[in-house]
């Protein structure tokens, strides 16, 4: 994506150290960065670490950004690298809070819909989380960010063929593990 004049001015202001401009940039991209991190890590605390890491890198490296490049691609590449860094340094901790009482109070009449949607999201998140890191990030960029194979290849620093191959392998795993969601209407069978 080519930067328009407003974006270019915003980034140039960030490069001059204008904190208000950085706040605007953060507001525009925080949901995207946090969502990718959350879907990749599957854990809000880890997602906060990844998103924080991404924005700190953005803050310290924005001076190196060339305005003729795509800011979106640059930012995607940064969050993907932060995700992969997180994977590398992640320690295997016991899921000690897995059995914690999860009490949620809701006062709404759509509880069954919410319940079903939540279970579907949890099923997808659970299966995505078990994909290999390189396949996981490609699936997230493809289905959450709706990016083309070519754009994903540019971000991941690999060929379009590699992206297609990773997606293909991920599809085979996902088809098998999410087959219970295949019924018409998408109801989660148990």
């Amino acid at each position, binding site marked *: 994506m080519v930067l328009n004049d407003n974006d270019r001015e915003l980034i140039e202001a960030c490069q001059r150290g204008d904190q208000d401009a950085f706040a605007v940039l953060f507001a525009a991209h925080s949901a995207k960065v*946090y969502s990718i991190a959350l879907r990749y890590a599957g854990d809000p605390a880890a997602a906060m670490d990844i998103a924080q890491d991404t924005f700190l890198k953005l803050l310290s490296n924005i001076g190196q950004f060339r305005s003729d490049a795509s800011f979106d691609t640059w930012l995607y590449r940064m969050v993907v690298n932060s995700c992969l860094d997180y994977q590398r340094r992640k320690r295997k901790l016991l899921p000690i809070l897995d059995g914690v009482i999860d*009490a949620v109070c809701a006062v709404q009449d759509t509880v069954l819909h919410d319940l079903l949607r939540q*279970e579907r999201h949890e099923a997808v998140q659970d299966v995505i989380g078990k994909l290999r890191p390189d396949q996981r990030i490609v699936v997230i960029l493809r289905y*959450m960010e709706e990016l083309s194979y070519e754009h994903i290849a540019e971000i991941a620093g690999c060929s379009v063929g590699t992206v297609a191959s990773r997606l293909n392998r991920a599809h085979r795993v996902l088809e098998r593990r999410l087959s219970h969601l295949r019924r018409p209407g998408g109801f989660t069978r148990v």
Partner: protein
Amino acid sequence: MSNREKDNQWLEPVLRKGLTRVHAPAELWDRVVLPRMDSRRSAPPPRLVWMLAVASVVTASVCAVAVAWGHYPNPAGLNGLERPVEFRSQRASDIRAWVRQRTGLDIPLLAHPSSTIEMIGASVAEAGRVEVRYRVANQVASLFVSASDGRLSEHKHVIRGSMDNVTTLSWSIGPQAYTLAVQRTASLGGACLVCHTTESIL
């Protein structure tokens, strides 16, 4: 669209629905502009983390049990979901009639629930509390029902909780209060099909 982009037709919508964007927590901004507050740099010792985690589990358990059991049918015997029932039947309509005749409670069980539901029977415990037991995809589930003072027309005051290997969901509707208890590996949404059709839920 090229061949390689012809992704599986059922899988794509599932992934798109399951991978929606979320808002970043407001705390993220503080953590970016005030990096000294980064919790990773001041992480407490592992032993303290474990102690706090255990304390959190105990506190949360006590609070959830106190809240849920104070207002909703007490799913007593959650660990005994396999104990015998007073009235055995695989027909939901027979169970509904038996419960109504014994207690006056009308539980809106579907006459012909989903094929994933297999009825087992029902029991009446002290204070007129009813347990309807069934299997959902071969996992035992119990629906506990008792009379309540409420006159609510919709599912209200929903409390979701879990203990040991059982997940519970409590709510009030009309003059009755309900607690649904399923084994942790089972789907609460699937267990709702004893009273709801798939279409009504979706």
